[in-house]
């Protein structure tokens, strides 16, 4: 088996590819506007919201301290698992919170913020117990390898970092970053879910020749949920590719790569979103 070195995640941006992605995004949005805005503005609004939600998910992933296998061995800071698992965990927890709020008719803003709180809560609990296990179970202090002083508390990090490691444990800034990332992920996921649910509740009764909207509610909820999960995973994995596996949070130099992920998530969400909406609107 040929083992090639890990990609370092090329520096800089590719102008041609970026321009093409933005063109694709504009083409999809404009085409949807022309085709659907007059007949049902809901479809166009849903597409825009789904794109914003996807970008929020992709941006939020950059905050989450992902350690991977090195973190499990105490050789790198962060939570000891992969981006896909962490993002899916916080996103789904947020989705549950948001879906509950939507089901209780608490309104648009309360619902999506409830989703964000759900994701943030899940990340906060994860970070707390990860820190407990690192500190009392593995006996390692929290020290960042990327910065000399913690950007929030101003605590010095260098003295606590073991030689030969990239830092270990979960520094305070990573903890805060995780909570912010969970909030953005939950917010974005719930926004996608909410808008898709509106579209399906409006369009599915005619499609399935059902008597009322409440009869098809299980189908609309399930469809919106599975699409929200699918789009969440697509955006989270794209963002994970952007940070090539591990990051410490917003103080990591890799955080500066986020504009690339935003462009990628814009175009990917537009494509996935329009197809997901067309399932009911076609």
């Amino acid at each position, binding site marked *: *088996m*040929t*083992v*090639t070195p*890990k*990609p370092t*995640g*090329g520096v800089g*941006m*590719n102008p*041609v*590819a*970026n321009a*093409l*992605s933005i063109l*694709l995004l504009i083409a999809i949005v404009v085409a949807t506007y022309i085709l659907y805005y007059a007949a049902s503005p809901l479809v166009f609004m849903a597409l825009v919201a789904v794109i914003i939600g996807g970008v929020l998910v992709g941006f939020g992933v950059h905050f989450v301290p992902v350690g*991977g296998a090195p973190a499990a061995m105490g050789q790198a800071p962060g939570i000891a698992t*992969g*981006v*896909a*698992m962490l993002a899916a965990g916080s996103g789904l927890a947020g989705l549950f919170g948001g879906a509950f709020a939507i089901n209780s008719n608490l309104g648009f803003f309360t619902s999506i913020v409830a989703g964000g709180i759900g994701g943030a809560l899940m990340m906060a609990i994860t970070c707390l117990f990860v820190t407990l296990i690192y500190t009392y179970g593995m006996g390692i202090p929290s020290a960042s390898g990327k910065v000399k002083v913690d950007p929030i508390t101003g605590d010095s990090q260098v003295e606590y970092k073991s030689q030969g490691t990239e830092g270990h444990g979960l520094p305070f800034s990573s903890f805060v970053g995780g909570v912010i990332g969970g909030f953005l992920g939950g917010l974005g996921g719930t926004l996608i879910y909410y808008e898709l649910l509106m579209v399906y509740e409006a369009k*599915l009764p005619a*499609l*399935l020749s*059902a008597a009322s909207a409440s*009869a*098809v*509610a*299980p*189908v609309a909820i*399930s*469809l919106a*949920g*599975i*699409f929200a*999960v*699918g789009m*969440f*995973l*697509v955006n*989270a*994995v*794209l963002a*994970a*590719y952007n940070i*090539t*596996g591990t990051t410490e949070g917003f103080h990591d130099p890799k955080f500066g790569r986020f504009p*690339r*992920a935003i*462009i*990628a998530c814009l*175009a*990917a969400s537009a*494509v*996935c979103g329009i*197809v*997901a909406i*067309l*399932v009911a609107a*076609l």
Partner: protein
Amino acid sequence: MTVKVEKIEGGTPHNTLMWAGLIASLVCIYLGAGLNLAFSAYTFSFFGGLAAVAAIVWGSNTIKTLCSYGIGTGVPSVGMISLGSGVIAMLIATRFNWWLAPIVLVIVAVIIGAIIGYMANDVIMMKIPVMRRSMTEVAVIGALMLMGFAQMATSTYSLVGLASTSSTLLGVTTSGFGGSFIGASIIAVAFILGAIAVQHPFNATLGPSWKQDRMLMLAAECGFLSMIPVAFMSIAYLSLPAVIVSIVVSLAGWYYTYNQYLCLSQRDAAAWLDAKPIREPEGH
């Protein structure tokens, strides 16, 4: 014990596996749908599961091709993005009639996968030569898996069929949406069954002693293992004989592939011993 020395590189070329997987998967879906229609029965729904197995075998080799470059995020992320993009293509395809749906599925999945691959390779600058192609393939694989499992569980893959149920109780037929494949969110279970089945084979067999035939056998084993729960789910939608046929096919397939995988693992192991109870030393 004989040690069989084989080249680590080599095995079946990826292109061959790709076309074989794609064609086998499509043929199985069409066979299941066509035979069910021809005999107006549910008995041939298990072909959907076989389509998923073919897609999983192809998918494990795609993931191997991609992940030998070291993508940094772990093998499971590819399984997740596969189903994440696949579910969207699969559900838009369910809007079309039974002979058009699999073709639409492949076309839409290719478009979505190609765009995601372009984003990952050129915008995010992964710069992996097989990235665009692999992302395209995994989207098709995820969509085919879901369509196969949907067909196996409910005997159909039309949106109306997946979203509604009709039950006959005391001669009165009632139809509803709550307990259907989509309405009861069984699609979420199929989603994660497929995602784990497609990423596990390479994740479990990677390393210096990786052998293609062992990984593909494990992929088939994972596919049949995922078929078993789907066969049990189909109790809610299919007639009893069809369910029994599905369960027998998936159990038989799983038993055969599991045995074969054990043989291949023992072939590739440096040494293996049959475990025996620990003997107490004498006079102790």
